[in-house]
């Protein structure tokens, strides 16, 4: 039995507090995120450098996507954008595949109750460590260790051990530098992915593994028949977040170089956008190209995001909702009928 006070409180509407509590988020989000996004969209229809105030319609898009535009170097801009897209794809692929394989293997090993592994906690802590180090520092660290000449640690050591006769161009070499970035990205992220997959595996009902053990399934069968299928949602999530993360790949490709300019062989889409707008003054920056490239990335992200949303939606909840609607309809129909007979 509810007391009088309780009833009175139930009668008060607290809705206005709900709006008050979420207001700061929406105000700040609109000011610092939504408006800049719209502004980027507007900028993508405006000119570059000295023409920054001019409306140019779809010119920026046709320049970076088709190579046709009013500016003299339209074809070069298109080439650069597609090279950046290609680099992003190669670098993402080259770090995602080894990363997911390694993380999956480690996650299965670490969650295997039969394996006796001393220092499991220590290994987890060490393997996650690269992920928290400042990416700019990581780039600097690798540049200072893997410099192109024999005056740097790795090349000097390799030559002393007689493994190579001439220094390897880890930074300027077109293939070696890409492999290095893939390695660094894997080094940075495998611990994180491993821990996420581990929590996914630990969420699987252990009695499934016990039953499989009793039925005589070996570890490989258990992995392919139980772990992998049940891990699918978290794998999809990892895949999509990694893809979106790949589109944002910036710090390492941008800073993995010697001297003042970034390495063109490692130019990703994020670097392309950044380099085009970050030129100090409006007169020397290409806000138009940067805006158009941003919107292209936004569309790709939106597609990837809706794939996860679709794959991870709560199927049970949707089924229940459908059932409830059906029941409601039936009930209404019944009421109507009842009303008629009366």
């Amino acid at each position, binding site marked *: 039995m509810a007391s009088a006070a309780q009833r009175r409180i139930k009668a008060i509407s607290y809705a206005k507090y709900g709006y008050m509590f979420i207001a700061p988020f929406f105000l700040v989000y609109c000011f610092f995120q939504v408006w800049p996004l719209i502004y980027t969209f507007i900028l993508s229809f405006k000119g570059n450098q000295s023409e920054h105030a001019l409306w140019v319609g779809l010119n920026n898009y046709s320049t970076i996507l088709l190579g046709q535009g009013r500016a003299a170097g339209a074809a070069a801009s298109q080439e650069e954008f597609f090279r950046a897209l290609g680099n992003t794809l190669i670098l993402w692929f080259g770090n995602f595949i080894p990363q997911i394989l390694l993380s999956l293997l480690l996650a299965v090993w670490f969650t295997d109750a039969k394996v006796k592994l001393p220092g499991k906690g220590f290994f987890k802590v060490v393997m*996650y*460590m690269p992920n*928290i180090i400042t990416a700019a520092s990581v780039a600097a660290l690798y540049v200072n260790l893997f410099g192109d000449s024999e005056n740097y640690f790795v090349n000097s050591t390799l030559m002393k051990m007689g493994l190579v006769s001439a220094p390897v161009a880890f930074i300027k070499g077109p293939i070696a530098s890409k492999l290095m970035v893939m390695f660094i990205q894997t080094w940075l992220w495998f611990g994180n992915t491993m821990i996420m997959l581990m929590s996914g595996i630990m969420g699987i009902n252990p009695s499934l593994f016990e039953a499989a053990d009793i039925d005589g399934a070996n570890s490989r069968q258990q992995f392919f028949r139980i772990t992998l299928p049940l891990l699918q949602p978290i794998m999809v999530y990892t895949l999509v977040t990694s893809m979106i993360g790949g589109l944002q790949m910036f710090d390492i490709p941008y800073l993995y170089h010697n001297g003042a300019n970034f390495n063109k062989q490692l130019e990703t889409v994020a670097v392309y956008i950044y380099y085009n707008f970050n030129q100090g003054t409006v007169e020397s920056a290409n806000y138009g190209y940067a805006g158009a490239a941003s919107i292209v990335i936004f569309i790709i992200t939106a597609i990837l995001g809706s794939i996860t949303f679709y794959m991870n939606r709560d199927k049970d909840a949707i089924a229940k909702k459908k059932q409830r609607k059906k029941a409601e309809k039936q009930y209404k129909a019944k009421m109507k009928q009842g009303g008629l007979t009366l």
Partner: protein
Amino acid sequence: MSMKQQYGQAKDNYHAKIIAKSALIFAVCVLLTLICLVPIYILIVNSTHSNMELVANPSQFFFGSHLGENIQTIMNKVPDGASKVVKRTAQQYSSAFNVGKGYLNSFIIAGSTTVLTVFFSALTAYGLVVYDFKLSGPAYTFIIAVMMIPVQVSSAGFVAFMYSLGLVNSFIPLIVPAIAAPAIIFFMVSYMKSSFPLDIVEASRIDGCGEFRTFLTIAIPMMKPAMAVQAIFAFVANWNNYYTQNMILKNEKFATVPIMVSKVLAFDKNLDNGANFLCVTLSILPIVIVYFILSKFIIAGVALGGVKE
């Protein structure tokens, strides 16, 4: 062969297999540990060697004795008798990599963003979970939908907008946006849904407690675990955020640690390898120390679905 013997053999065999497997796994883990730690070790070792030593022999595996000189170089405190080149080098390093200033700036940014992010995310999550209002559903859907939008997508507009507001070279565009962190709100909402009893809010209302006070004195203490995890991640993410900081902070006096590292990286003359390594060491040292102190929470937080930067 008796049955017992046979059974015993099979058991031994099983044990041998498990031991072999464990040994293999242990070996792989040791190898990966080395891959993770050796670069850091070499980095620290090299920052204790002088430039001369590193030029003569770049493959140094053990600690040297020139840490003091390298510190003098990057602090611009070389002895008066030093050569002109040494002085110029020290000048160059100390102006690009001003350690104290960098730590201070990074700490101001990371510290205040962390407080804002955690507090306002908890506030928003509380508003969405506790109150039943018309737009709560759409608001939550919006937050989930925008969670994955990369910063890069709006950064051109963001910078242009900040230029027009005159907020370049100011900490405001780096700190205030932290109030709106969709991913952290998402995390807090799911945390509250699973472990925050709504009856407690009603009880405090009956006792005459105001809504905001209920949030401050009852909800926040109950959400401490979730807030602590998110605070760690927010701090690390903002300390490491080179992208946004580098496009807003153009003036040297606002430079943060990542910006300073990138400046050292861009040197092409008067290089001092020892000082180079020392700068990188100093830039990662605080975060690595904090990490090893808090590693248990951090690993648990990642397992909970901590935010992927």
